[in-house]
């Protein structure tokens, strides 16, 4: 048997931190002095994946920019739960304008920074725009595409929880097929969200051939932080799409948020990868391949698939989508399998 490399830290690199790691190898979130860009007291639901993802991403971006960061935020859960007057949870310069314009607002901020730098500003201030899947793939799509196309120096982060959760769980173009939402009820001949619709924004971002596109989940913090930091090494438009489970909208237990994120990747339902200038450069390999049922079952939005007579055909279609992801984004480690 060949030995594992000696650099093995009790629990590998999967935990947030580890006392055995050298400080520079620890995650941002393990740091006692992490920014907590999104601070306590916000009004997100228990177990909110978006609140978690936002702190992960923005803290990492703060780390990468030496705290020289400004954020533009689309309307949505993240905005509503973080900044209801008279309290804000943000500890960074942050701006909310509208639902569909966060990328353009960010363009404006970045342009203003560019001019300020020309006029002598020393700080290399970077700009992040963020929004939910509705604000990104639907109403903000035009502004986002424009920002990509101009290659403005903005990192756009989409927190994808697969629906309009803030308004009461309606379907978005990121809602997965078969999922129950308030506007795709599990009734009629095709219960839940229909197959054959929806869009996968990361692929669209790649089509713009912007410098950097990545997907991530809140289950793999180190990967997420790595991608945010990597994104900050590029100038120009960058896009990171983070899967963030929503206990409310998914009908999942609040403590299962990370578990579901993990299962989304391990079943192939959500591909985790990186792309540069339109080409796939890296994909996170599935560690323990599981059938999609493992991911679907804990979520009430898919409960109609698992009744007395399970919707075998529908589950098979979802499995086929996962299999396609696995092929397309090379999610299996060829050497290991």
């Amino acid at each position: 048997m060949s030995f594992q490399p000696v650099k093995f830290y009790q629990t590998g690199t999967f935990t947030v931190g580890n006392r055995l790691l050298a400080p520079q190898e620890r995650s941002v979130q393990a740091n006692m002095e992490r920014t907590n860009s999104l601070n306590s007291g916000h009004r997100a639901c228990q177990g909110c994946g978006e609140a978690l993802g936002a702190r992960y991403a923005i803290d990492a971006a703060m780390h990468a920019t030496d705290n020289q960061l400004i954020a533009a935020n689309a309307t949505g859960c993240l905005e509503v739960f973080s900044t209801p007057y008279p309290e804000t949870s943000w500890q960074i310069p942050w701006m909310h304008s509208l639902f569909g314009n966060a990328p353009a607002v960010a363009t404006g901020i970045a342009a203003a920074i560019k001019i300020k730098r020309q006029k002598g500003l020393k700080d290399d201030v970077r700009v992040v725009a963020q929004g939910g899947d509705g604000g990104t793939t639907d109403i903000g799509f035009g502004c986002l595409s424009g920002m990509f196309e101009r290659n403005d120096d903005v990192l756009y982060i989409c927190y994808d929880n697969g629906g309009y959760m803030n308004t009461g769980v309606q379907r978005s173009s990121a809602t997965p097929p078969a999922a129950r939402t308030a506007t795709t009820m599990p009734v009629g001949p095709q219960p839940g969200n229909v197959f054959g619709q929806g869009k996968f924004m990361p692929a669209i971002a790649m089509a713009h051939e912007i410098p950097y596109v990545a997907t991530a989940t809140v289950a793999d913090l180190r990967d997420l932080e790595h991608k945010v930091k990597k994104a900050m090494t590029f100038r120009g438009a960058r896009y990171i799409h983070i899967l963030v489970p929503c206990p409310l909208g998914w009908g999942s237990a609040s403590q299962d948020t990370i578990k579901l994120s993990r299962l989304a990747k391990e079943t192939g339902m959500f591909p985790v990868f990186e792309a540069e200038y339109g080409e796939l450069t890296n994909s996170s390999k599935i560690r323990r391949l599981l059938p999609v049922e493992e991911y679907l079952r804990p979520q009430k939005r898919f409960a109609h698939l698992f009744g007395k007579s399970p919707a075998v055909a529908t589950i098979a279609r979802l499995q086929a989508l996962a299999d396609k992801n696995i092929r397309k984004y090379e999610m299996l480690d060829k050497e290991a399998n």
Partner: protein
Amino acid sequence: MLKQMEGSHAVAQAVALCRPEIICAYPISPQTHIVEGIGEMVKAGEIVNCEFINVESEFAAMSVAIGSSATGARTYTATASQGLLFMVEAVYNASGLGLPIVMTVANRAIGAPINIWNDHSDSISQRDSGWIQLFAETNQEALDLHIQAFKLAEELSLPVMICMDGFILTHAYERVDIPTQEQVDAFLPPYEPRQVLDTHAPVSIGAMVGPEAFTEVRYLAHEKQMQALELIPKMAEEFMAIFGRDSGGLVRPYRTEDAETIVIAMGSLLGTIKDTVDEMRDAGVKIGVLGITSFRPFPLDAVRQAIKHAKRVVVLEKTFAVGIGGILATDVRTAFFGIQMNAYTVIAGLGGRPITKTALHELFEKAGRDDLIPLTFLDLDWNVVNKQLARERQKRRSGPAAENILRDVSSTAAHIS
């Protein structure tokens, strides 16, 4: 320096002299020549430390402006008509957030039917958006108002919309006096934002405000516009001192001293009205004109002072509130509080319909005889209207009105088909 140039280019020059930092725009007639002019100057390096951003829509244009303004950059954009409507959500947002963006609206009708020609429907539709709206009478005034606009906007931390008539002003070549950079610099200090996205002093801009504070926020926005009522005349005086030119202000009375009839209007139309008034004065008619420069905030007191000795008021407006009539007229009437007076609303020049002195002579004479109905449509072709109405009475689904009318107006129809 006196120069012959197109109105759009005069505005572009004015904006350039204001040392803008971010210009973002999406093309729409008749605004295009303005931003083309500025874009060229930025690209040529004539405007330093300025970023020109070609955005993908007017919504994005205003959104980029919001972002850059909130980051402390002097920001300018321009639009017209449908473009203004397309950015409406962001227009309200900019004022709600108190961002001193300056925007030119090259006034143009709103469709459908689509129409590229001038009226004031676009700007007027945004009268409640919280923006300051200043209407230019001439290209010189348009140029001057832009310089004042930046100062006004930044002093109050409110966005300012400079409204100039599409084509009539934007595309008209006139002699204008282009100020020197020194003059503009003397008048307009560098932008010091009231709030700014600053990594060294972080704030959250754009909080969600509930019933507990929303009314107060709204009232404070109103209060700020009230401050503008005092600031605008002051600024015109300061402008006069530096540039030697009387430009801007709230209202612009012309031969109203002993006038029995006062015509109220906005924009380039005032020129035609003044010519007509001059001719009627020559004929002994006691008639005057009150030009409204500041439509928002609406100068109730100034209007009241100007008209209180008159017998009647004729509000001539290039806009139309379907279902009631005048919009400017309604605001003017608010100034009448406690004064009994006849006020006639005249809708004119919609979609670029020419307003001729002949028509005005006839109109004002009728007004002088108090022979006007409360709501008049200047030069309305009753023949066309009545035919369509008759057709509709006969047949419930008589087809699109616009096409039917085009068919009726045979000369136009011949040109098109």
